[in-house]
């Protein structure tokens, strides 16, 4: 059983496992061949057990990598030749893949490939973590759209652009990353980040226009991550500036200093107060969320595209004592179950809060309490 707690996909096509405690990194992928390995564009866990990673490659192939045996298992080429992945998720044996051209494909259980045209170039597709069939897409001149893949091919929610500016010109739209606040119902809150350095918060329950729009910095914003259990997000731009942004006050709180290159992926650990970032500067950096101080950094030799936390192993490694491996696995199992319980308890509480408060504010234009 491998003990790598972070998995990073690189532009060279190699998947790297990083164990931050012992400062180990290992690359999975043979780059000695003369042919170039297809770039890893998108990564996601196949299920919540976090035993297998689903990789979306440059040529449209989908590969599975088992973190237990540390080798590539299956290869699925149902999406081959469709284009460049801008989002890939696996749900119950089915694949949801979105491509640069704007096509969103859902490989449903009856093995029919359902194709949806998102209406333009798509830069990013994200899913609702609690209901992966609810996906959001957005791109260049292609505003935010929510799709419910279990229902119809029509968008469940289509965002409306802001009103024309003072010169009467249409406000340009280029959504680079989307984050869906996890929820069990079909009308989530969505936060998008655009090339025009705007952070836009949408509430699909109330209105089509964004509930709030904030200008953040001067550079195109490229990635976003939700801070779990807090009304905050982390936003990364194309120059390496990572900002912690408060959704309540809609102002930046502070920056995470250290990245020198464009930020491709930011992931917050679900329970530990830790953020991992990777990007074009070939480093994987880990910051503490509370103090915003850098904790670890790993030089990973090639440009990095995407990143995944192995949530349980990351927590275990923190409490590990330098004893034999067998002892560790026994004690760690109990930690694993403890960890799982706390996560489940917190979620229903949050959902119930939202349900109670909303009706009081139903009459106001911005329906959600921030």
């Amino acid at each position: 059983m491998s003990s790598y707690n972070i998995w990073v996909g690189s532009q060279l096509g190699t998947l790297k496992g990083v164990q931050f405690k012992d400062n180990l990194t290992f690359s999975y992928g043979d780059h000695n061949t003369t042919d170039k390995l297809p770039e890893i564009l998108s990564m996601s866990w196949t299920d919540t057990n976090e035993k297998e990673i689903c990789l979306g490659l440059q040529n449209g192939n989908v590969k599975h990598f088992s973190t237990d045996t540390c080798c590539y298992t299956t290869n699925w080429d149902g999406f081959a030749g469709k284009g460049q992945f801008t989002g890939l998720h696996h749900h119950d044996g089915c694949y949801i893949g979105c491509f640069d051209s704007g096509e969103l494909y859902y490989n449903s259980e009856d093995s029919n490939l359902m194709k949806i045209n998102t209406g333009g170039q798509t830069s990013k597709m994200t899913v609702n973590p609690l209901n992966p069939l609810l996906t959001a897409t957005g791109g260049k001149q292609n505003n935010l759209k929510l799709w419910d893949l279990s229902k119809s091919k029509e968008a469940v929610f289509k965002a409306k652009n802001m009103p024309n500016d003072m010169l009467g010109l249409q406000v340009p739209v280029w959504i680079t990353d989307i984050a869906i606040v996890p929820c069990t119902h079909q009308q989530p809150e969505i936060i998008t980040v655009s090339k025009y350095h705007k952070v836009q918060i949408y509430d699909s329950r109330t209105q089509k226009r964004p509930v709030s729009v904030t200008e953040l910095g001067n550079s195109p914003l490229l990635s976003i991550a939700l801070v779990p259990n807090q009304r905050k997000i982390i936003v990364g731009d194309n120059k390496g500036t990572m900002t912690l942004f408060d959704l309540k006050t809609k102002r930046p709180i502070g920056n995470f200093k250290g990245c020198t290159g464009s930020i491709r992926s930011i992931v917050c650990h679900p329970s530990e107060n830790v953020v991992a970032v990777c990007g074009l500067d070939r480093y994987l950096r880990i910051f503490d969320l509370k103090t915003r101080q850098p904790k670890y950094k790993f030089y990973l030799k090639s440009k990095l595209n995407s990143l995944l936390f192995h949530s349980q192993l990351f927590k275990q490694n923190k409490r590990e004592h330098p004893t034999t491996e067998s002892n560790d696995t026994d004690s760690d199992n109990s930690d694993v179950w403890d960890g799982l319980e706390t996560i489940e308890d917190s979620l229903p509480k949050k959902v119930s809060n939202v349900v109670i408060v909303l009706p009081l504010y139903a009459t106001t234009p911005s329906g959600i309490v921030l």
Partner: protein
Amino acid sequence: MGQPKSLTTIMADVKNKERRRKLHQELKSQKRKEKKDRKKKRIKEEKELGDDAPPKKVPKTIESTRIHDETLVDPNDDEIIADERSDKLQTYFDRIREPKVLLTTSVDATLASIRFIEDWMNCIPNSERRDRNKLDLKSVVSQATQQDITDIIIVNEDRKKPNRITIAHLPDGPTACFKLSSYKPSSMIKGHGTATSHKPEIVLNNFSTRLGHSVARMLAAIFPFDPQFQGRNCVTFHNQRDFIFFRFHRYIFKSKQKVSLQELGPRFTLKLLWLKDNVIDSELPEYEWTYKRREMNKNRRKFQL
């Protein structure tokens, strides 16, 4: 309490400039004397011990005390070799695309930039200078790609002096921006020679980190593949403390050990400001590296290239 105060601490409290100056002179002569005594002692020791004498001390320089960089390239590293092979500049190193360079200035540039370009063009074979004439960058790039140009060098001007150089590799390649300083035209160099049209040899010194490698590859990709050794021309990009010194010489071997150099071309210094992964006019540029003064300026012994 009983310890004697050093001259420097006494000096800090003295308000009278004359007295302080005298104390300073005293301090200096004291230090000079100590140094002389140490040297005398060392020479005496060496004489006495002969071969057993302790080795001569090497002075610490900023380069020798440089902070170890993780990104220092190991020439045997497979992954870095593969990374460079899959680079956008590999078409040059695979000898597929012969470099064709376009040099131009920023909009509304004065004669100074044009003179700089013409001076620099002596070293770069297969290059061409065009007037900018208020043309926007997108048009420059589209016209250049139509004419199969591989690299565009744009010299930016400020206060009637060239101050920045942007090298853009064309089809979709990386773009680097450098700060230009200490420019000395070839006419101002004492005893300079005139360049011939021979293709020069390229020397790239001290580009040790991964970022340094990327920059060095970009600089090398401007020049033609095979140098003409008959011409005995050599272009040097010497990196020291993140400053890249450009020199253009003609060399001649007087004997097997002795070489003499004649400086031909311009002399200038470059400092990397940013390195972008996309073309110069890309709609969504992504930076591989940017100079962040507040974060990178903190340690005098940490270098990026």
